């Protein structure tokens, strides 16, 4: 069954889009991160223009994070203060990101930048996850009761000024750190159409040293507002948000997420992370091949304009 996407200006199979949404939802349910980082490249693979894929995916991220935030908010797993500080950077970052996106689109390099950023990001995360899960797996087999380390290590970054106390996270760190982190994630969000949870969550744990319990909820808080900002700015400056596309992805996600969380409950964490890293690396490899392979035609068309 085909449906016409009014902003992408092309028709697409409904079930392909629902399936993509379900796959992203599955990941969201399994790992607690929104599957945007996989959904956006997959949308591009099936032929949605990258600009539309990114902007519509940002719209989908809102839905994803609001349903996740509901749960974490109720459980009190949101460090509001940390969330707001992150958000401060996130708003600036995402606005700068949309501006950058618009500029890159105008000079005809947006597709290339999206692909390169995805390759770099996905391969880094994929490799980190793969090595981590492999070493954990090996360690567990040798020594099932591994000793717990320090809560978090102290680096140079902890000497930055403007220190703030984050009670819920049991942290006393410089506000510059979360603001800067939020800023970077914001840029990533705007250009790649992702919430950025898969970068934000590890960064919050390893860089800021936040306790794992509040990380997911707090990141969702920041992602919700950043995604809303990106959606709004993309709609007003580029007009590339396709709500029909976003709605289909959301619907698919509603089906996929509970399946994901049920799967997650059955499989051990190490195996899950190992599987996910393989998946991430596969997408990165596919994108890299696209960049390296001689294209069937070197020509493409930019946006149509009215002749003066």
């Amino acid at each position, binding site marked *: 069954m085909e449906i*016409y996407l009014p902003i992408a200006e092309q028709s697409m199979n409904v079930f392909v889009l629902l399936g993509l949404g379900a796959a992203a939802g599955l990941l969201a349910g399994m790992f607690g991160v929104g599957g945007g980082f996989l959904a956006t490249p997959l949308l591009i693979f099936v032929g949605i223009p990258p600009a539309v894929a990114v902007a519509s995916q940002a719209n989908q991220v809102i839905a994803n994070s609001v349903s996740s935030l509901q749960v974490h908010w109720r459980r009190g797993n949101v460090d509001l203060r940390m969330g707001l500080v992150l958000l401060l950077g996130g708003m600036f970052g995402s606005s700068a990101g949309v501006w950058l996106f618009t500029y890159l689109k105008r000079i005809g390099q947006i597709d290339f930048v999206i692909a390169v950023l995805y390759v770099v990001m996905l391969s880094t995360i994929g490799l980190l996850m793969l090595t981590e899960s492999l070493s954990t797996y090996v360690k567990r087999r040798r020594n099932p009761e591994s000793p717990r380390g320090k809560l978090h290590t102290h680096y140079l970054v902890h000497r930055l000024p403007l220190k703030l106390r984050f009670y819920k996270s049991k942290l006393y760190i410089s506000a510059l750190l979360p603001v800067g982190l939020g800023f970077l994630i914001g840029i990533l969000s705007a250009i790649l159409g992702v919430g950025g949870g898969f970068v934000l969550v590890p960064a919050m744990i390893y860089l800021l040293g936040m306790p794992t319990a509040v990380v997911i909820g707090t990141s969702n808080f920041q992602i919700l507002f950043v995604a809303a900002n990106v959606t709004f700015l993309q709609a007003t400056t580029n007009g590339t948000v396709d709500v029909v596309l976003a709605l289909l992805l959301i619907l698919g996600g509603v089906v996929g997420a509970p399946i994901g969380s049920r799967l997650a409950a059955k499989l051990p964490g190490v195996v899950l992370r190992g599987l996910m890293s393989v998946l991430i690396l596969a997408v990165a490899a596919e994108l890299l091949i696209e960049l390296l392979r001689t294209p069937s035609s070197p020509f493409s068309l930019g946006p149509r304009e009215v002749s003066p």
Partner: protein
Amino acid sequence: MTRLLVALMAGLAWASSAHAQGPRVEPPSTGLPPSVPAESTTPDLIVDLSRARVSITSAFHGESILMFGMFDPPGEVVVVVVGPEARETVLRKQRFLGLWLNTGRQSFDHVPAYYAIAASQPLQRLLARGAGGEILSLEDRMSMVKPVGPRAATELAQFRGGLVEVKRREGLYPAAIGQVTVQAGRLFRVDLPFPSRLPEGVYEVKAYLLREGKIVAAVSRPLPVGKVGFSAQLAGWADHEGALYGLGAIVMALFAGWLGGAIMRRL
């Protein structure tokens, strides 16, 4: 005075009824009523389209429109469909440090969004005989698009070739357009294929009747292509009310996410 007025009104009524009959190209006035069999070579061509417009609805996935009509034999029929003109920018990829990225660009003005040509005889043979210089093959039409800015001729030819290649790939310059089929010597029909990714605007469908390489009759029909219904509504908001559309998209996602979350917890 009254008689003059009556005559005028009768004339008007005749003109409007003739108009309502459709774009029938009347022969140059010979003094004979049209019903008289054409013993002289009165050029005559009547056409119609199976649809008056291409409506891009939510279920749109390309469409084929039939043009059919009748002509006074002998003769050959050529049909040309031209989409609205715009400036197109062709991007060219090159290998840079092992990666393929866009390194060259060239814009062209007045590029038709869509161009298709069909004929009841092999087109080359018909056009070789002249055709008054009005009917243009795709190659001739594309040689007319104006490049923006100066560039070497060989480079321009490459970009122009690239433009045609991309348009072909998108089905906007269909190469394999069905040929005009003629039945009973005077009825003709041709299928005009339109792909799913179709630029909006008013297209022009033009039919020509050729005799001995000369155009003896031509009929033109506008064919509006546009989104209708829900698709049109959404695209209109996105174009003109970007802020409102953006807010609407956010509210939609918030509600859908909240509802999805609520349903999930029940399961």
